[in-house]
C-alpha cells in the first residue's frame, strides 16, 4: 500500500480498540459509565496473556486497572498473596463481575493437576475455580489458545487432560484465541462490553470486530501467492505458503493491526504464520516449517 494515499479503512481498523476506549474514557470521566469488577483467572497456561496485556496501549494497563475497571484479582500481578489473595477472589462471588480467563482447565484426577491456591485450608483446583466463578460472572472472556480451545496445554499427549473453558461451563463464553491474545483484542472486547454489552460474535463466539478476515485476505505478500511466487527459505520477501504458512486458515487481523503497539508482525519479519489464533493450534497447525513441499508439478 502506498504511504501517500492512506486507505481510510486501514486506519479505521487500527483504531477499533482505541476508538472504543476513548468512548469509555469519556463516559467514565462524565460519570455516565460505572466501573465494573474484573477478575483475571489464570488456569493451566504460561501467563503469556497477562504479559501480552501489559504491552497494551489502548488503554495502557495502568488505566485498565485504575480507571476502567476494578481489577479485583490476578495471581501474577496483585499485591496480596496466599490466603489473603484467595479471600479477595472469593469475596467477588455475589457481586457483579466480568471474568477473564487464561489457561486451559486441567481435568485429570478431578482437577488436582492444577491447584491455583488454598482457601480455608483446602486446595482450590483450577477446575473448581472456573466452575464456581464462571457460572456467576456477567460475561466470561476466554483469552489465548489454552482457554479458548485447550491450545498448548491440551497438545498431545495432554498429560493433565486439559480442556477449554467452554467444555466445563454451561454458558456463553466469548473466545479470543491467539497465543498470546493481542492486548487490543481483549481491551477492545472489554470496552465493548462496558459500553454496549456483548460484541457481535461469529459462529465460534469470536468477536467479529477482530476475527472477521483471514490473515491471507489482507496479507501484504498476497500478490506473490496469486502469482505463484513462493519463498524457498526464510528471509525471502515472497509468499511463505510452501514453507507452511497458516495465514490462509487463520481468521484474525494481525496483518493490519500488527503487534508490540502496532510495530511489526511475523510475516513482515519473514516468519510464516503458525496459526496461533486458529482453533486447533498447535497440533493442528503443525508442521510449522517445511522445506520439501512440492513447488512446480510437471504435467
Amino acid at each position, binding site marked *: 500500500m502506498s504511504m501517500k494515499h492512506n486507505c481510510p*479503512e486501514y486506519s*479505521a*481498523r487500527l483504531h477499533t480498540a482505541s476508538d472504543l476506549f476513548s468512548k469509555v474514557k469519556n463516559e467514565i470521566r462524565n460519570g455516565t459509565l460505572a466501573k465494573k469488577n474484573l477478575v483475571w483467572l489464570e488456569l493451566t497456561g504460561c501467563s503469556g496473556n497477562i504479559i501480552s496485556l501489559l504491552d497494551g496501549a489502548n488503554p495502557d494497563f495502568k488505566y485498565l486497572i485504575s480507571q476502567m475497571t476494578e481489577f479485583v484479582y490476578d495471581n501474577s500481578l496483585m499485591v496480596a498473596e496466599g490466603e489473603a489473595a484467595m479471600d479477595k477472589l472469593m469475596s467477588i462471588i455475589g457481586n457483579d463481575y466480568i471474568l477473564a480467563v487464561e489457561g486451559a482447565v486441567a481435568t485429570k484426577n478431578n482437577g488436582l493437576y492444577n491447584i491455583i491456591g488454598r482457601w480455608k485450608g483446602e486446595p482450590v483446583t483450577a477446575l473448581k475455580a472456573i466452575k464456581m466463578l464462571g457460572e456467576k460472572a456477567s460475561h466470561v472472556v476466554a483469552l489465548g489458545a489454552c482457554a479458548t480451545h485447550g491450545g498448548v496445554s491440551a497438545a498431545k499427549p495432554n498429560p493433565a487432560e486439559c480442556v477449554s473453558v467452554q467444555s466445563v461451563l454451561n454458558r456463553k463464553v466469548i473466545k479470543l484465541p491467539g497465543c498470546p491474545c493481542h492486548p487490543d483484542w481483549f481491551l477492545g472486547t472489554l470496552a465493548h462490553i462496558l459500553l454496549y454489552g456483548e460484541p*457481535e460474535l461469529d459462529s465460534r463466539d469470536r468477536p*467479529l*470486530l477482530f476475527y*472477521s*478476515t483471514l490473515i*491471507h*485476505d489482507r496479507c501484504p505478500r498476497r500478490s506473490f*501467492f496469486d502469482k*505463484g511466487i513462493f519463498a524457498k527459505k526464510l528471509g525471502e520477501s515472497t509468499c511463505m*505458503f*510452501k*514453507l*507452511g*504458512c*497458516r495465514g*490462509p*486458515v487463520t481468521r484474525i487481523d494481525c496483518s493490519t493491526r500488527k503487534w508490540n503497539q502496532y510495530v511489526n508482525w511475523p510475516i513482515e519479519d519473514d516468519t*510464516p504464520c503458525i496459526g496461533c489464533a486458529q482453533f*486447533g493450534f498447535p*497440533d*493442528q*497447525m*503443525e*508442521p510449522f516449517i*517445511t522445506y*520439501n*513441499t*512440492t513447488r512446480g*508439478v510437471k504435467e
Partner: protein
Amino acid sequence: MNNSTYQTIRTKVAESQNYINLIYVAPCIYTRNMLLNQLKAKMNEIDFLSGLAFGKMNQMQQNQRDLTLAELAKFNGKDGNPAYVAVNGTVYDVTNNAAWAAASHFGLMAGKDLTSEFASCHGGQSILSKLKVVGKLV
C-alpha cells in the same frame, strides 16, 4: 447447454448482482466482508455450472485415472509429488490450494482418503467444486 443449467446460471448471476448492490451500501466492513464471501461462493457455483455446461468435466475425465489407496499415498505433496486427497471416491489436487500449506490442513496430510474428516468439518459446503479432479479412488 440444456435449458435448466442456463436458467440456474442466470439465477446465480442475478444473485451475484444483488450481492454487489448490497456491498455498495454495506454499513460496515464486517457486513461487507460477509457479502464478499457470499459473492465468492456464488462465483464458484457459476464456475462449476459453466464447467459442467461446456463439457469441461467430460474432457477432464478423459485425463483422469483410477488410483488405489496405496497409489494415492505417494501423492503426499512432498519432494516433487503433487498433493492429492480423496473425498467420497473422487481424488482432488490440493497442491496449490491455499488451505493446504506444506500439503497439510489442520493436522491432516495429503495422500489420504479424507471422506469422514471432510464430512465432519465441511459437510454441506460446496467447496469441492473449486478443486481440480484428478481421478477416482478404487
